[in-house]
């Protein structure tokens, strides 16, 4: 049973990590908590659903949904956050504006899509589980764990190993002076929105495939977990998001398996509050916490 | 001899691996105007942020009248009589000039929450006295006519003077002025200089950062020169401007000569 529970936890943790990656990247570079982020997850799942219902292969639908969500994220950022950046509005204004936008977008999606739960056509992917020494895993679960690892590696390379990453880090540290250093700030902001939105969209497709539970509000539920993951991992810390996602996923699963499933959901938030008390800069503590 | 008003003792701060202020020591004697000069990036504003408590030091000590203040938060230092202005003015945009000055009296004003809620006699008295003093201070910096204007709407030079009035409202033992003449036209600079001379005559201790060397040389009793985070020279104005190290690092030969010429 323990082996199976560890696999369960690994899958849940990878999902949390996948979801938190784009969220933390947005904060790390753009310096805003963008609450619309969870919405891209819902939209990604629905776009892929519609595509596959029209006979498109999931391997095409997945990148299509990711790109479309990235594009939506760019538009939302341009409409809501760019004006605030320009007006040098206080940091919390962007949090509030995305909060309102989230409510607006979910309400619209709910009206347009209804809250009925839906699933991918069963022919889209082989959903059956294989038995490995008594532990059952599905293809989708392998896909989720694999892509979480691969995407973290790719993002770390992008941020630390590429020329683009230098620009992104400059933008993160000194948004006003980055422009002076020949960094096209506007383009980088759009790029980060694109990547983050795409990550959320792809994550939505994978969740939809794994659980067969596609619903407009699916992103909202993930968002609450996302807060815990990015605080525990350290706001803006990509490696932290991976580790924190796995920790929370595993702890939740083990709590449900060996303590009580009723307190499972408290694990993430308990860790959130604990992190704030003990180590506000997160697991790795590398991110300079902005002090008041 | 009594302790100096401000004593900076082997102060160091590092950002990442870089030392922005590196083992600097100097003292500001009570009742003097002390200048802090040096090229851009020398660590002057960082030094101000260290003294006023916006940046925690990596090593060293800061003493105000012999008492260590380097572990205190900025508001704790303000209560002990340390006031400052900012290089890029920080106004409370929506407040009137009068309210702005009264905000500066925060730590000197004895108004408890219950007193304010019940509008007790003590509260009314404190508020009225503060108001009277705020009018005086506005008159002192020449802004009495602008008392009811939104401070964010005041012209640049007036905002600088309002910021000084706000700092004076704190009844400081030490006033830190970060480039008070920056962006001012010559006549505004002269008015400012007259204002500071008046404060100096009242015995206020001032530490100032300024790029206008004529202004600094005329006003200061003592000058400390920073370069790349280190102290490279200090002394009376005539000594500093003659110091070849300072001329080389900051002033340049031409400026140094012009400073020596009678104005």
């Amino acid at each position, binding site marked *: 049973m323990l082996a199976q529970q560890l696999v369960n936890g690994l899958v849940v943790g990878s999902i949390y990590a996948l979801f938190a990656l784009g969220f933390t990247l947005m904060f790390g570079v753009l310096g805003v908590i963008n609450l619309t982020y969870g919405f891209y997850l819902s939209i990604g799942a629905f776009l892929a659903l519609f595509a596959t219902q029209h006979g498109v292969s999931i391997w095409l639908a997945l990148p299509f949904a990711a790109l479309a969500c990235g594009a939506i994220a760019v538009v939302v950022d341009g409409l809501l956050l760019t004006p605030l950046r320009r007006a040098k509005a206080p940091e919390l204004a962007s949090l509030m504006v995305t909060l309102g936008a989230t409510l*607006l977008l979910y309400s619209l999606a709910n009206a347009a899509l209804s809250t009925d739960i839906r699933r991918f056509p069963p022919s889209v992917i082989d959903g059956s589980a294989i038995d490995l020494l008594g532990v059952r895993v599905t293809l989708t679960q392998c896909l989720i764990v694999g892509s979480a690892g691969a995407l973290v590696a790719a993002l770390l390379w992008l941020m630390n190993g590429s020329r683009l990453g230098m620009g992104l880090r400059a933008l993160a540290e000194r948004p006003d002076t980055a422009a002076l250093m020949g960094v096209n700030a506007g383009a980088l902001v759009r790029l980060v929105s694109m990547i983050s939105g795409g990550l959320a969209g792809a994550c939505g497709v994978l969740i939809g495939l794994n659980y067969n539970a596609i619903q407009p509000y699916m992103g909202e539920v993930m968002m609450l977990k996302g807060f*815990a993951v990015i605080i525990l991992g350290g706001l803006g810390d990509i490696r932290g998001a991976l580790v924190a996602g796995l920790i929370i996923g595993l702890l939740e699963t083990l709590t449900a398996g060996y303590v009580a499933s009723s*307190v499972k959901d408290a694990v993430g*938030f308990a860790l959130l509050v604990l992190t704030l008390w003990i180590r*506000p800069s997160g697991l790795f503590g590398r991110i300079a916490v902005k002090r008041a | 001899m009594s302790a100096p008003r401000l004593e900076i003792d082997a102060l160091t701060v590092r950002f990442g691996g870089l030392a922005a202020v590196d083992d600097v020591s100097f003292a500001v004697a009570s009742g003097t105007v002390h200048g802090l000069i040096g090229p851009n990036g020398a660590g002057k504003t960082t030094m101000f942020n260290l003294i006023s408590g916006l940046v925690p030091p990596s090593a060293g000590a800061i003493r105000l009248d012999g008492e260590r203040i380097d572990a205190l938060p900025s508001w704790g230092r303000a209560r002990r009589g340390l*006031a400052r202005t900012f290089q890029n003015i920080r106004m409370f945009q929506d407040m009137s000039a009068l309210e702005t000055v009264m905000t*500066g009296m925060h730590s000197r004003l004895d*108004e408890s929450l219950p007193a304010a*809620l019940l509008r007790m006699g003590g509260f009314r008295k404190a508020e009225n006295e503060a108001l009277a003093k705020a*009018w005086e201070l506005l008159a002192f910096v020449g802004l009495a006519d602008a008392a009811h204007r939104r401070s964010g709407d005041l012209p640049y030079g007036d905002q600088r003077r309002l910021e000084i009035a706000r700092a004076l409202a704190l009844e400081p033992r030490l006033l830190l002025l970060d480039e008070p003449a920056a962006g001012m036209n010559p006549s505004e600079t002269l008015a400012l200089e007259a204002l500071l001379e008046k404060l100096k005559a009242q015995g206020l201790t001032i530490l100032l950062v300024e790029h206008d060397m004529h202004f600094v040389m005329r006003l200061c009793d003592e000058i400390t020169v920073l370069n790349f985070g280190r102290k490279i020279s200090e002394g009376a104005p005539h000594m500093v401007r003659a110091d070849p190290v300072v001329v080389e690092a900051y002033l340049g030969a031409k400026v140094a000569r012009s400073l020596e010429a009678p104005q």
Partner: protein
Amino acid sequence: MPEFIDDFLFTYQTLVYSLGINGLLALSMYVVLALGQLSLGQAAFMGMGAYVSALLTVKIGAPFLLVLLAAMLVPALAALIVGAPTLRLSGVYLALATIGLGEVQRIFFLNSELTGGALGLSGIPMKGGLVSIYGSLGLALVAFIFVARSKIGRAMEAMREDELAAGALGVDLPAYKLAALVVSAMLAGLAGALNAHVTSFISPEDYGFHAAVSILSYALLGGIGSPFAPVLGAFILTLLPEVLRSLADFRGVVNGAIIVLVVIFMPRGLMTWRMGRIGASTRRPS
């Protein structure tokens, strides 16, 4: 009493009570926003007040005034625990920590036998009414006006405009932030207790994230130039779905759109008038 007046009062009783209670909630949000902080835990504080008061009334029949007092103290304590670690961090942390508080509380309510789990608590006697609700709102308004026109009000506005400069003038930033959060939690707790005692039934879902966002939208729409503004915002947003029933269909859309539009285009809210911050006559002495 003539029948039609009686009918009128009956018909609009819940609405009239909601106006007052939401006004109190808007004020609880105002205290925090007024010094530049953001709490998304107002609904959680409200729920805490509601549950504590309902349990005290139902289980041990405590006197109503005592019940209200307890409903303010318990959320205050929670505010201390959640608020304290975030005070020296950027404002984002408080916002996230208060969301966390709401979730932890929801899980507690759902799993505790005492609170009736998802079934909530029903049969709470009607003890609140016009006097307790509007009396509380009136007292809170007067108190906020007096506080705004004192050194405390000046310090709060200074913090909102420029925290750094306020600190350099001697404003004890963490103390102010914590005090504001505690007062805000007390007010929300009071509102929750009053609400529980006029609706007779409470359950955990009443105090979720959506409720927190609604409370924020009251204050944002009204503005924070004076304590009247958030109350106005609460009144408008409470009446809107009643007056425009067709809008009720799109309540989420309307609330969301209001927040977005106000923050971007009208950061001062509807009521832009800014109350003075001096508690005496500001006439120039001759």
